[in-house]
């Protein structure tokens, strides 16, 4: 029964303390950033995690990275339970799991050269005491990230590069450790459309050439099609729909997925279509709505949705959604 996955997340919860009990209220309040998320990933697989800001997708990534401690649940990576890994084990894990951040303008230290930035992981992990080997690995990582020839970039500073080039540097510094799993947190949302395609293609190529598994976090369902095998749609800390990319894009079941799909801009005025624009924004994850957490914004919610928290319904193999209306 228990199949061993490359990465398995079981009932993961991450709550942040929002208010301590005080004179006026005895209640301890929590932000339910990640609320009972289970998912698994196979080697070389790409899964896209989609949702609006505040849905907990970035917190989930940070928890997987070990940068946030989980409140409950289990994370099993390459057969080992890493939920409560100590500092030493964490450091070793960092060589296997790397992360690419959203904002390439902020995630590079302006006082370091590109070479220093990309070499930093090697220095931190004492991997290459030999300077020449270190240099060679930096050059290889930069060229793999599409900065060719690497020589012209090594001595430069982040402010001399464009946004797309900086994001490539961030990717290179994640690649230099040759990780098995890459967490990409909105890697293209700050970039111009013309540059986005390049970065997405780069990630797709890396996955093919290096067999890296990627968790691709985005708010834009439009960009996931290109290389995700599976898509998980998150809302308020929970996965509301998960399935194979084609299944989710072509046969979305959850009203939230449908709405997200309908607002993807279509670059052709002849194809203007009916959009489902949800009113309001993701509610505050401190006081979760009763029943289905999506019901206050759901266009098809009924009384039943206010009461019952919907269980997952299997629509097709590996395709399930949490909605009472399926």
């Amino acid at each position, binding site marked *: 029964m228990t199949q061993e996955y490359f990465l398995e997340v079981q009932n993961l919860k991450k709550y942040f303390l929002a208010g301590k009990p005080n004179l006026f209220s005895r209640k301890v309040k929590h932000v339910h950033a990640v609320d009972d998320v289970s998912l698994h990933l196979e080697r070389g697989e790409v899964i896209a995690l989609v949702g*609006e*800001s505040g849905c907990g997708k970035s917190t989930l990534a940070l928890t997987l990275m070990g*940068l946030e401690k989980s409140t409950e649940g289990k994370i099993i990576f390459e057969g080992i339970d890493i939920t409560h890994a100590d500092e030493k084990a964490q*450091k070793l894990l*960092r*060589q296997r799991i*790397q*992360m690419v*951040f*959203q904002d390439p303008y*902020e*995630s*590079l*230290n*302006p*006082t*370091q050269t590109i070479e220093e930035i990309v070499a*930093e*992981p090697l220095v*931190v*992990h004492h991997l290459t005491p030999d300077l020449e080997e270190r240099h060679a690995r930096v050059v290889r990582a930069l060229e793999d990230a599409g900065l060719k020839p690497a020589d*012209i970039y090594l*001595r*430069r*500073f982040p402010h*001399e590069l*464009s*946004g797309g080039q900086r994001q490539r540097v*961030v990717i290179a*510094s994640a690649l230099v450790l040759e990780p098995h799993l890459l967490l990409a947190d909105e890697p293209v949302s700050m970039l*111009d*459309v*013309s*540059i*986005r*395609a390049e970065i*997405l*293609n780069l990630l*797709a190529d890396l996955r093919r050439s290096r067999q890296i598994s990627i968790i691709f976090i985005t*708010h*834009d*369902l*439009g960009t996931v*099609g*290109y290389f995700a095998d599976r898509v998980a749609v998150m809302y308020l800390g929970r996965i509301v729909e998960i399935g194979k990319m*084609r299944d989710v*894009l072509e046969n979305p079941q959850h009203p939230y997925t449908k709405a*997200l*799909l309908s*607002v*993807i*801009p*279509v*670059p*052709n*005025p*002849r194809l*203007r279509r009916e959009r489902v*624009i949800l009113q309001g*924004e993701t509610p505050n994850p401190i006081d979760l709505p009763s029943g289905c957490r999506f019901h206050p914004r759901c266009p098809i919610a009924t009384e039943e949705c206010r009461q019952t928290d919907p269980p997952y319904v299997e629509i097709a193999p590996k395709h399930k959604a949490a909605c009472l209306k399926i």
Partner: protein
Amino acid sequence: MEAQLVEHKVIAKSSPFLDFWKTFSRNRMAVVGLVMLVTIILVAVFAEQIAPYDVTTSANITSRDIYKPPSAAHWFGTDDAGKDVFSNFIYGARISLTVGFFAAFISIFIGGIIGIVAGFYGGRVENLLMRFTDVMLVIPDLPLLVVIVAMTKPKLMNIIFVIGLLGWTTTSRIVRSQTLAVKSRKFVLRARAIGAGNMHIIRHHILPLVMPLLVVNAILVISLAILNESTLSFLGLGDPTALSWGQMLNFAFGRGAMSAGAWWALVVPGLGIVWVVLGLTLLGHGLEQVLNPRLETHHLMPGRPVVQTEAGNSSPILRSARPVLLEVRDLSIHYITEGKPPARAVENVSFTLHEGELMGLVGESGCGKTTLMLGLLRLWPAAGQIVGGKVHFMGRDVTAMSEQELLDVRWDGISIIFQGAMNALNPVRTIGDQIREAIIKHVAILPGDKVDDRVVELLDLVGITADHKEHFPYQYSGGMRQRAMIAMALACNPQVVIADEPTTALDVMIQAQILELLDSLRKRLGLSIIFVTHDLGVVAEMCDSVLVMYGGVTAEYSDVDTIYNSARHPYTQELLKAFPDLSKPEKRLASIPGYPPRLDALPAGCRFAPRCPVAIERCHLEQPALHRLNGRHVASCHLVEE
């Protein structure tokens, strides 16, 4: 590819140090301060060579030499012991500076460590250290100095230590707040993600960014230490064997220089102190400006006067049934900085905006689209200048208007929804208050309650309920802030609203909400909107016409259907290909290799040629003209020429 390599070489030369030196040498205050300081340091170092007399011996001195006025033999007279004041001054510089530098070093070291540790580790450590700092800060420095020095032996070493040990409080506070700021930046999180430990992060990521501040602070601490030493010596608590400037003052004052009328014995050391402190202060302030250029005014301001030129006689632009609100003809805007080639941010751009029209202005970052929009209102950073072309708003020429006349156009006629709603709102004032301000500034006398009614009306217009009126920007979500910005732009009933990337930082769903709102406002209020974006997909949903810019020039301009279904410029075509198409998700995304040109180093031929997949030789040599294809459709490409 070649053009790209050349460009790399041009920028590869700059390094932070060179950049720093360039700005530094241009800052007059810093240079004067540095020269003053270096002079006095050289004097101190070469005291033996410079001083005309040896101050260590009293040989050849008689009682007649006491308090001699300035003469050829003693330029600044003699002191109470008959010694040469000028020589004393030179040797005194050595001691005063030694005390200053060493004491400051101790202060900076302690203050730096406490500040970084408190800021970086936070929590209980921070609380403890900062409360300790507060206590130290509250105790008056000078009396404590006096007490401690009086209790210890008045040796120079002791004085240095005492001054150093008491002078770190301000440094630690400044360093702590800077550390807090740096700590929250994303690259520190990135360093954690690669597995770096605390020490590594402090050394490689915190310290380099705290350093500039530390240097500026050190300079001010040095001057404080020198002043403190002088005060102590003057009070008679200095090391009697070390004749610092303060000690000179002390001796002169205590031994009757005033009654003997020997002003020189007091003025010379006094001037020395003033010289050093002034030099250090100038250098400190200068450095602060150099290292933190944001202190300089860099806000939008009325640009330089317009260089009047005849507008080019390009063929008339298609008329539509609706009246023309805004007509831009061959507008060119350059950024002119002395000693650099001008950045040709906008060149020969023309477009026409009709009443109720929604135009999309599309281009990559740095293509000049924001400059063009600010140019319509003649607002941009000081170096900007309209060097050609005309802007007609409702028949009036904006480029020929006086500043006074422009005030009528700005906000009343054309208003802007700025990019990044959080930065464009004042965090310490309520949203209602800020909208009220926009109304009062522009609409002639409205009674108070009428203004409030108008605020509520505006908020309602953008879908914010009245009970959110008195909330602060931080209480608003991203989408609501953007709505508030729109309300503010509508405050004076403008005819034209420029929306500068209003949805860029927002989620797709909120983006859709804002787009829907703008579209409905256009219909309800009859607004004309210029929607600036880098995303062709966004504008397809609602625009009437689209202007695609590349590297400061018009690439293509036409009605929306033509742009998306029969684009002629290769850049437009490539942009459309780069779009994810959900119906064919497995298809590889087309991308445009290379990067947009720098506006101060433009290629000789077509600006898109280095990245163009279909460029021919002519494209690299000759700039293409704007070709009219039919009606409103124009494209600047050699290949459309037939």
